[in-house]
């Protein structure tokens, strides 16, 4: 087995060969699926738990607090304790709710990010689904989550939940536009929706630097719109703790509530991953044109660290938004999208086309 931290292609291939050598071809494929599934399941659980912990710590430091300090060193085991508590809690179902949809909603919400995460390129060769519509796949799949939110609101038999769900529906449908248009702005330059190609196209510099001003504008629109799409503050209209108690998941308890909670954080990760891949070169180290020396030093840092570093930076930015700003009102939210983000986005796309045609980008 040939393990190389800079390029996982051989490592993955060797596992594949080994599976094929010990198992018949069909069984080898299934075994491969199972291994990948288990890997992602573990990854998502660890990711969810650590993101919750990080969020609590980051928020605490913004607020001049220490955050969780009791369970484990500096409270590191706090989220594990929380999840144990949630697992043991009674899953209550309110009277008059649509039981089937009520249960289904929690699963739909968690399935969407599970599917989307498969297309995320973690490092060279460490990429499960790499097909030519990768970016399209991620945006399409991750918007399935809103169905879950709508169902949750509808089936809960609670007016607060219903209002929250309807808000969330209006919000996600609108902001989906901006997310995709801002991504399209970069696609104009890459010419491909395949994530590995997008990453590879940034070998000589990230798009945010190469793409001139339109790329920077596109990134800001992307970060605003994707914050809104993931239902996070200041766009947490669907939950709106002080208005709708807890919005669409008011009636959920126990492990089903944990699903909603986990889904929020995995969505956060996916958004950051997409942003990092498209604007900041994914796992690609920071390269500046032809400065061989500089590029070589940067190459020395493993791509997986680059990738997670970029994601951490974007997640931090989104958390910073959440813990600073007041919440918008639903009509202001839609005004922001349709009167500001969308027109700017369209003009920006046009501008980018102009840049691409005249070769002003690097």
């Amino acid at each position, binding site marked *: 087995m040939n393990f190389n931290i800079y390029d996982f292609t051989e490592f993955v291939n060797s596992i594949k060969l080994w599976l094929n050598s010990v198992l018949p071809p069909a069984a080898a494929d299934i075994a491969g699926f199972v291994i990948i599934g288990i890997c992602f399941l573990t990854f998502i659980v660890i990711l969810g738990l650590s993101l919750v912990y990080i969020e609590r710590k980051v928020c605490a430091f*913004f607020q*001049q607090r*220490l955050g969780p300090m009791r369970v484990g060193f500096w409270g590191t085991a706090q989220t594990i304790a929380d999840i144990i508590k949630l697992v043991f809690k009674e899953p209550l179902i309110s009277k008059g709710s649509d039981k089937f949809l009520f249960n289904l909603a929690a699963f739909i919400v968690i399935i969407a990010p599970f599917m989307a995460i498969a297309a995320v390129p973690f490092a060279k060769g460490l990429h499960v689904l790499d097909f030519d519509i990768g970016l399209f796949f991620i945006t399409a799949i991750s918007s399935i989550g809103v169905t879950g939110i709508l169902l949750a609101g509808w089936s809960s038999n609670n007016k607060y939940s219903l209002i929250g769900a309807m808000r969330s529906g209006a919000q996600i449908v609108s902001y989906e536009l901006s997310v995709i248009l801002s991504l399209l702005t970069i696609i104009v330059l890459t010419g491909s929706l395949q994530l590995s190609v997008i990453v590879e196209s940034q070998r000589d510099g990230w798009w945010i630097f190469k793409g001139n001003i339109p790329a920077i504008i596109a990134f800001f629109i992307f970060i605003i719109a994707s914050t809104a799409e993931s239902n996070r503050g200041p766009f947490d209209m669907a939950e709106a703790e002080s208005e709708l108690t807890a919005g669409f998941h008011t009636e959920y308890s126990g492990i089903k509530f944990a699903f909603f909670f986990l889904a929020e954080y995995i969505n956060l990760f996916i958004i950051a991953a997409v942003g990092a891949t498209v604007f900041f070169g994914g796992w690609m180290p920071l390269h500046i044109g032809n400065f061989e020396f500089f590029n070589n030093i940067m190459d020395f840092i493993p791509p997986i660290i680059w990738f997670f570093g970029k994601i951490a930076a974007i997640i931090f930015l989104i958390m*910073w938004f959440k813990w*600073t*700003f007041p919440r918008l009102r639903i009509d202001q939210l839609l005004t922001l999208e349709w009167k500001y983000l969308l027109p700017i986005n369209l003009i920006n796309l046009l501008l980018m086309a102009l840049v691409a045609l005249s070769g002003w980008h690097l």
Partner: protein
Amino acid sequence: MGLKNYISDIYNGVKSLITGMKVTGHYFTHPGEIVTQQYPENRDTLKMFERFRGEVVLIHDENNMHKCTGCSACELACPNGSIEIISGKEIDPETGKSTKIIDTFVYHLSMCTFCNLCILSCPTDAIKMAQGFEHSVFDRSKLTKVLNKPGSKIMPGIK
């Protein structure tokens, strides 16, 4: 004109958002300014102010003497009935006169609002407010306290 307003709206909006982020960003990067305390861990160093009203205590000196004459002024002053004085009689062996003394000084912590009126009303300064604030117990009956220690006597000369 309309376009100019539109752009200045966006500019001012973004500027105000960044001002806000600067404030939170400042505190994020200055963890030394954290104000919260780690409460049970800092028990040893935690000192309450001397006037803090935590509970009523009857002051006893080293000879197990207190100053309470059992006049029940505190009982009358208490707005919630959290003090009950059960008084007894003691016959002076020399003169044969009987004097009123306290038998039990019952203090219902669960009913107390820490208003300090009993302390103000006490003519002999026998009771005071102590600084203890950890009053939680598993059994409600433990909140009913007897303040005079067993075998304690009134200080001589206090009338």
